[in-house]
């Protein structure tokens, strides 16, 4: 007698989606579909708007990383006007961006990632959440987590004018400067971040690296994909979140390409599947070979792990140390273990904190030159920044009055759509055997493959976050649905 398993919703995802795992008659995984059931159509309805309004509109693509969209948009708009922001404006923007990373990475690790490790993948569902983590690590730490996240947001609020949907960017610069006392305040907070980032890495080492079982899962679990890695780098090929060129390295870590934002169309292409609203980007020069990894498949990933792989190191001292440790422990560059993402994210957390401090101590930051004078409208512009969940590309076209005629967006999680799809399939194939053992813990381990990406489908689908039914359907060879199984049923 065959059974049907239904698991819903896959929670603790800042995104909206649905994964169908289809088993064959024997109950082994036949295929997996990651379906994104949402679309809002920003690419269309931004048309006809004055381009300077876009930074205020596209933040609404995603309330989780709206700051990144604001930055990418701000840069694209600058390009449309053919200007660079003033040095002060540029630094203020990056400072905001760093605070944004600090808050988001803290949130992901403790609220979304850590539960799997700190509480444990096999722990009862009711405890596998931030509250469970707090119970485990102690309320004072839990309070500290929330506090640090708050401080990071206060900085965003202070600079961005909003803690969520920022309004700071104006063509050629920013609307508001920083006062000395504000700078001091940020500096103090940034010092705290550095300490907290190191403390968090310590927890990771103790709880995760200190636990053979977990390390084994990371290294030998079914969480390995041989993909191209993408990330934004500075002139020294060091990781940079705000500015630089996009670099892609292959499975061996050799540079596949390195391009300036305006050239992205020569390197990235997207595929449409009829069963999901979200597109699948891939490397144009390699081409789409389906949902497979390896050198011949254009599938790449752009995320903390991808960024570390794509770079030659971190631009700040403490983070550089962690960067080196990361690769030595995980057996050299590049790393293809999906779950290593959590560690990579913490390395980035430390970098963001350090960079935040650097900028807060930069004398330019309180400068008075906030806006570059505009002269004329170029009519097209591309802006690229790193979002927490991947490389973020905004491309605008306007008429000569600066009214938007076309918009193209390739956002963080979209880059990883195919990769997530494959990771989940791989995990499912390895973990679900004969369908009989589809226990809650096992299925949570399937989700872990997914969760590692911190996928934000509100971005990816330019749509809402939402519940994520993970359906495990038993079908016969002809594909007729036999039965499904509820994880918690």
């Amino acid at each position: 007698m065959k059974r049907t398993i239904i698991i819903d919703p896959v929670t603790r995802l800042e995104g909206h989606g649905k994964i169908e795992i289809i088993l064959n008659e024997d109950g082994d995984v036949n295929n997996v579909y990651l379906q994104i059931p949402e679309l809002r159509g920003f690419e269309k309805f931004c048309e006809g708007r004055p381009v300077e309004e876009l930074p205020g509109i596209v933040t609404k693509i995603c309330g989780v990383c709206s700051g990144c969209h604001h930055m990418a948009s701000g840069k694209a708009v600058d390009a449309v006007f053919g200007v660079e922001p003033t040095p002060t404006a540029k630094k203020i923007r990056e400072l905001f961006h760093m605070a944004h990373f600090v808050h988001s990475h803290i949130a992901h690790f403790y609220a979304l990632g850590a539960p799997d490790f700190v509480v444990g993948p096999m722990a009862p569902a009711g405890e596998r959440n931030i509250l469970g983590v707090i119970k485990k690590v102690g309320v004072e730490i839990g309070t500290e987590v929330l506090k640090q996240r708050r401080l990071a947001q206060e900085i965003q609020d202070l600079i961005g004018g909003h803690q969520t949907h920022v309004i700071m960017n104006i063509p050629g610069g920013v609307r508001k400067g920083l006062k000395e006392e504000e700078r001091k305040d940020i500096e103090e907070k940034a010092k705290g971040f550095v300490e907290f980032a190191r403390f968090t890495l310590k927890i990771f080492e103790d709880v995760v690296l200190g636990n053979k079982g977990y390390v084994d899962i990371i290294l030998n679990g079914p969480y390995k994909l041989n993909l191209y890695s993408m990330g934004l780098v500075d002139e020294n090929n060091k990781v940079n979140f705000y500015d630089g060129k996009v670099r892609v390295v292959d499975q061996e870590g050799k540079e596949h390409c390195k391009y300036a934002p305006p050239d992205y169309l020569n390197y990235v292409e997207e595929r449409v599947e009829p069963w999901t609203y979200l597109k699948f980007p891939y490397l144009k020069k390699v081409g789409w070979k389906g949902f497979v990894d390896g050198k011949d498949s254009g599938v790449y990933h752009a995320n903390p792990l991808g960024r570390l792989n794509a770079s030659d190191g971190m631009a700040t001292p403490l983070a550089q140390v962690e960067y080196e440790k990361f690769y030595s422990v995980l057996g050299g560059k590049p790393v293809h273990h999906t779950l290593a993402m959590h560690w990579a994210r913490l390395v980035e957390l430390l970098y963001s904190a350090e960079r935040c401090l650097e900028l807060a101590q930069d004398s330019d930051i309180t400068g008075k030159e906030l806006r570059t004078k505009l002269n004329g409208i170029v009519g097209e512009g591309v802006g690229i920044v790193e979002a927490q969940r991947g490389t973020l590309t905004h491309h605008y076209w306007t008429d000569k009055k600066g009214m938007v005629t076309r918009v193209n967006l390739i956002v963080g999680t979209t880059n990883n759509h195919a990769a997530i799809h494959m990771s989940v399939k791989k995990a499912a194939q390895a973990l679900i055997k004969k369908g009989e053992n589809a226990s809650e813990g096992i299925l949570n381990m399937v989700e872990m493959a997914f969760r590692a990406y911190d996928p934000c489908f509100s971005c990816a689908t330019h749509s809402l976050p939402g519940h994520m039914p993970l359906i495990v359907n038993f079908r016969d060879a002809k594909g007729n649905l036999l039965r499904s199984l509820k994880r918690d049923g």
Partner: protein
Amino acid sequence: MENKPKLKVAAYWGAACGGCSVSMLDVHEKLFDILALADFVFWPIILDTKYHDVEEMPDEHIDVTLFNGAVRNSENEEMAKLLRKKSKILVAYGSCAHMGGIPGLANFFSKEEIFKRVYLENESTFNPDGTVPQPVCEVPEGKLEIPVFYNDVLTLNQVVDVDYYLPGCPPQTERFLEVFMAIATGAELPPKGSVVGARDKSQCDECERKRTDNKLVKKFYRPWEIYDDGESCFLEQGVICMGPSTRSGCGVRCIKGNAPCRGCYGPPPDVIDPGAKMMSAIATMIDAKESDDIKKIIEDIVDPTGTFYRFSLPAAILRKKSIYEEKY
């Protein structure tokens, strides 16, 4: 209050960005106070509760559901209806649920136009067979389904009965806390259909910029066309600001950031269509008498709908562009 049973709260999202959920999480340490008063019985972003658990709940089992996001597809609508059934109080949380919000700007275009742009005529998309997503799709392993994408964006109260509206994009966390505490501590609630977590008076009442009665405008400027002096009323500088027809409660956050208000907090009581009200007001400010001079000034209002209905198009009297558009 100890002996009083804890409040059963649910939070859900329609077509939204997640910012509303973030605004709820932004209570930071106060999260503990909230959890002392309420059990979250459904909150996908945070908790491992299951969708079908909600279906199994008795009707009105949930005390309060905070629904954010607009209604963009069949799934949003179904969830809205389910949660309405299961909840005593349904709150439209945030601009999208309240007025359609930014996603509502899609009401300028038909489903076809949107698909065409995203999947068919897109610079980075290679789609020789013209594939577009299908609600039901045959794959070798069987049928796959995704929700039906509606032709227009709807507000929450256009699909279900709504008890309260908590405006903002996203709502200011303090306002959420105030409202939440009021409900949790059993305070007297305003009449059904009220806007909560916002004041009746408009932005200007809280705005610290210098204001006079000289609202005569000879030219409207786009924000980048002038250097905002940071001190005087945007309108008096000729920069369009939705402040006068937008409720206060956000702490004039955009204006404090030197950006004009775009109206996410929605209209004051009794104003049916904030965009129209503001257009009416803005037009009277135009300082010209001859048609041609007036037209010239109006030229600088480059995107009336996108400006005056930035957050409220689906709730407007003309809630979408005429699909039977007339050629002229």
